[in-house]
């Protein structure tokens, strides 16, 4: 919620950075000058923000307050409740099941980032910079992004099956590896991870591609003349200028993967055992399955806090190191 304005700030600083960048006159001549020092002339514009404030209040603040409300009470019936203070928070943080799910989710997010960010950048670097193939490449890469979450889950649920799914069949019969995600917890984990990589690497790739395209041609020409290898060009020309978009990509991918729910729910339902039961799946089990609103409320708030803090840390570290 409040995290959503963080990427916007990153984008802003990126734009400011580009002003100094070499602009090739013919194409640059039509751009608006960046009005970096415009100040509001009067305060009437604040009224325009009002609808947003109201809608955010209804969609975010009020539900959040409800959750806070639940998290500090023990609710028996809608009219019968006791104030319990921080008891639920204490019990949730001590719950071994929650702790295990937390570590599992953290591990999942870490793996997602480690795989998707480099892979996305690699894809972007390999995509053509100009010509007729640009649009083809963009459509092909973007395809997985256009599919709804639950459909992605369904696709992979079938695809990874050893009997009727192409992927599962190939692994079992061609590669000769015994693979069954419904029975083996490692297989289940790999399936969910592969699904996430397939679904979301394109997002990273597209962001990185946009970032790469904004690098002016003379930078590549200078690198050629300086005798830089392809790796050195990537390391010293492309990567430094991807910092902005990669910050956004990392934030988005962390938040999304840390809160992943639909896909594993559809594919594995959190199983086998607890192998793929991430925080979100556990939370919905407690809240909807067992209707333990108190612990679920405390759990939600902690969950929310963790995401906030992690995003803040990522953002600070990534932007600091750029200075």
């Amino acid at each position, binding site marked *: 919620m409040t995290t959503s304005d963080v990427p916007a700030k990153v984008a802003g600083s990126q734009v400011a950075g580009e002003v*100094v*960048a*070499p*602009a090739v*006159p013919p194409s640059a001549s039509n751009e608006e000058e960046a009005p970096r020092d415009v100040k509001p002339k009067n305060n009437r514009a604040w009224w325009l923000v009002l609808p947003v404030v109201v809608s955010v209040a209804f969609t975010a603040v009020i539900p959040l307050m409800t959750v806070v409300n639940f998290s500090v009470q023990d609710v028996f019936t809608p009219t019968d409740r006791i104030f319990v203070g921080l008891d639920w928070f204490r019990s949730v943080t001590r719950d071994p099941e929650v702790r295990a799910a937390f570590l599992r989710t953290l591990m999942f997010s870490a793996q997602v980032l480690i795989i998707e960010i480099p892979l996305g950048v690699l894809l972007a670097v390999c995509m053509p910079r100009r010509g007729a193939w640009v649009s083809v490449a963009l459509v092909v890469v973007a395809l997985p992004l256009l599919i709804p979450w639950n459909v992605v889950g369904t696709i992979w649920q079938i695809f990874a099956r050893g009997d009727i799914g192409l992927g599962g069949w190939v692994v079992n019969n061609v590669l000769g590896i015994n693979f069954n995600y419904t029975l083996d917890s490692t297989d289940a984990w790999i399936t969910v991870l592969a699904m996430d990589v397939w679904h979301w690497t394109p997002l990273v790739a597209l962001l990185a591609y946009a970032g790469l395209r904004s690098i002016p041609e*003379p*930078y590549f*020409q*200078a690198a*050629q*003349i*300086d*005798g*830089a*290898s392809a790796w*050195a060009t990537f390391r*010293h*020309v492309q990567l*430094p*200028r991807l910092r902005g978009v990669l910050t956004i990509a990392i934030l988005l991918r962390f938040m999304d993967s840390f809160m992943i729910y639909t896909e594993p729910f559809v594919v594995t339902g959190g199983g086998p055992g607890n192998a793929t039961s991430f925080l979100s799946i556990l939370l919905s089990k407690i809240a909807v399955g067992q209707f333990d609103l108190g612990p679920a409320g405390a759990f939600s708030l902690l969950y929310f806090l963790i995401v906030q803090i992690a995003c803040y840390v990522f953002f600070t570290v990534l932007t600091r190191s*750029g200075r």
Partner: protein
Amino acid sequence: MADITLEGVGHSYDGGRTHALNPMTWTWSDGRAYALLGPSGCGKTTLLNIISGLITPSQGRVLLGGRDVTGLPPVARNIAQVFQFPVLYEEMSVYDNLAFPLRNRKYPKAEVDERVRKVARLLGLEEHLRRRSRRLDPGRQQIVSLGRGLVRSEVAAVLLDEPLTVIGPALKWTLRSKLKEIHRDTGHTLIYVTHDQTEALTFADEVVVLKDGAIVQSGEPAELFLSPAHEFVGHFIGSPGMNVLDAAVERGIVRVGSALVGRAVGDDGALPDGPVRLGVRPEFVRISPFPRSPGLRAGVTGVDRMGSYHLVHARAAGGDLVAKTDPGEHGTAEHLHFERAYLFRDQIRCGTLAALEGSGA
């Protein structure tokens, strides 16, 4: 180090329908400082990129010391290039930026250090070596880019594409003469692209004037100034450019309207009758109270006081002229005397103007 020869080199960006650069044969001699001067869109950057290898010409061959390098990438050519805007490896320090071209070519560490420090000293970057390059002001960033071009001593040529665009006027003067001194000391071949004639003329041993993808004239700065071979050179070099009047040659006499201006002296024998254009630089227009040939009757219409000189505007029968004079030496004179004037036909110079016989020189 070696000569760079272009053999019938031309380039078209649209498969031959129009030429950004018309096919030309040209040699850049080893160790000279050249300026490539022309208005924007005349093909000077294209020409530069062909030499460095960033562009493969659509026709012709590029020879580096007799070796055909037409298809070779920039790395294989040993040419350095500096761009119009600072191009830096922003996350690196100034030192690392300067060392980058050397490290890529696997120079020994001690030599890298020595050269980086030498270039830094030449360009006044010594105190900034440890700073991160993106934190410098744009002018200094450009000096770092310049340093990267100069750090390799064995390069065949250093190409500079309007390198002083982002630099403030005062620093421009310092850097330009510094570049000239560096050239004298290192003996690199330098090719300097610019649209600024002061930059081109003060910098180069030889100025090559480019217009619409073709070389119009080349020569020493003084030569281009004193005897333009093309109307465009007269206009483009010199500030303000050459005055041009429509005139006609009749039996060896040049007329502007009904006025007899002077005697036509053809560059190759007598000049046939017909229309010509009379060109005279503002520096060679003298204002005098009495007629003096070659010259023209005119009235002063205004004066721009430019500090170190004055621009006197005058109206004559054939059109308006400008005279560049020392401050305070003009009156309300009625005559213009041309110390040096040229005649052009179809833009090409065909003769000069001399005094009419019997009216003194």
